[in-house]
């Protein structure tokens, strides 16, 4: 270890380092030695002291005006730096604005895309609905126009005398429809509900909304010797028909 320090001190690395003439690797090595070994540190301290003394011996009074020249150059340089900084600030603001507007437009584009998808879906749904409705109308037309279609007039019993309905049944096509023409008004907490008994099963056909369903043909499930009922049920419908409240029935 001692030898290592001796060899180091005998080389001129420390002197070179003192004068700032070492390479990056040499600098790292010297700085490591200075930190690690007190002998080297002491030697370096002495070298620094002596360099300062020796340099001071060569001092020459500076010429007048040199200090002013130095300050002039330093201020000019600082001004330049400040300009660069101002430019940098302006550039960052511009970049920020650009980023902001880019995000805004990107966001808008995404929204428009979403909207576009939504509109397309709606169009497709409408198309499907339209096809479905057209199909329904065609079926209705077939049933109504078919010579084999039987037409049944339905009248309400004593509980609803004004009830008028027409049922159309085609046994060949196995299709049946009902058109409720008139329904007597009910208290607000009651409604009409349709049922069909097909092959021994009671099927709930839903609530008849008197006004809107007036001109509509409601499909009925087809079955041999089926019976359809209209009952008065509490508002909102019932899972099973209330037999004593039957106002009309159609056998077909």
């Amino acid at each position: 270890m001692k030898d290592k320090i001796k060899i180091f001190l005998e080389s001129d690395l420390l002197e070179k380092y003192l004068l700032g003439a070492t390479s990056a690797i040499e600098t790292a090595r010297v700085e490591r030695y200075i930190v690690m070994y007190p002998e080297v540190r002491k030697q370096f301290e002495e070298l620094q002291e002596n360099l300062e003394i020796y340099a001071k011996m060569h001092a020459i009074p500076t010429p007048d005006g040199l200090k002013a020249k130095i300050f002039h150059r330093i201020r000019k340089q600082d001004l330049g730096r400040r300009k660069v900084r101002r430019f940098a600030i302006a550039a960052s603001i511009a970049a920020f604005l650009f980023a902001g507007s880019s995000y805004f437009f990107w966001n808008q584009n995404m929204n428009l895309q979403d909207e576009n998808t939504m509109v397309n879906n709606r169009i497709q749904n409408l198309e499907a609905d339209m096809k479905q409705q057209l199909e329904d109308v065609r079926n209705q037309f077939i049933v109504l126009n078919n010579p084999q279609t039987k037409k049944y007039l339905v009248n309400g019993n004593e509980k609803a005398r004004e009830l008028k309905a027409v049922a159309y049944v085609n046994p060949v096509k196995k299709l049946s429809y009902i058109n409720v023409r008139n329904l007597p008004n009910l208290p607000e907490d009651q409604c009409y509900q349709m049922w069909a008994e097909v092959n021994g099963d009671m099927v709930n056909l839903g609530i008849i909304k008197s006004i809107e369903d007036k001109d509509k043909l409601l499909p009925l499930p087809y079955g041999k010797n089926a019976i359809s009922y209209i009952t008065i049920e509490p508002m909102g419908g019932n899972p099973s028909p209330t037999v004593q409240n039957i106002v009309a029935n159609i056998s077909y």
Partner: protein
Amino acid sequence: MPPGYFLISHPAMSILLEKHIVELLQERNEKAISLLYDHYGDTLYGVAFKVVRDEELAQDVVQESFVKIWKKSDTYDPSKAKLFTWLFRIIRNTAIDKLRSVQTKSDKEIQLDVSNVYNLGIDAIRPEFMDVRENLEKIEHKYQVVLDALFFQGMTQQEASDELDIPLGTIKSRLKIGLRELGKIYGSTLMMLILLILK
């Protein structure tokens, strides 16, 4: 002898001053440059002149160096080197670069002749520099040549040995003895100054 000269020469005072200047540099206060110039300007100008051997060039070197000092003030690390060492490195390297770029005097023989430099600059020397100049004369010429080659001409010990035709071992010992002599001379001057002031 102005009282300030003694104050700055005193090691404790110069340490305080150094600390103050370093703080100002780190704050990027222009006062740092003013203080540096007032306390090290003459020495740095002398070093620059010693390397480039031309007053105009030396002034350019000092100007450029101070701009570098101001620009690089945040790179100075007081734990690694004394302030003067850092300043010396900047002025020396700037001066050597300047000399290389101008290439006015490439003949190293002339540069190594120490006495010429002082004959050139002697009129400019103020009385307060006279005693340090005397001190310089106290150092034997053979040591001076070695110190100058290493400190001002940017030579390595090997290069100095080749250039001056002195064995490497002698260069090493002259450098070490020369530096020791410096310490001795400086020490005695300081003692003398203290005695003078106390009287």
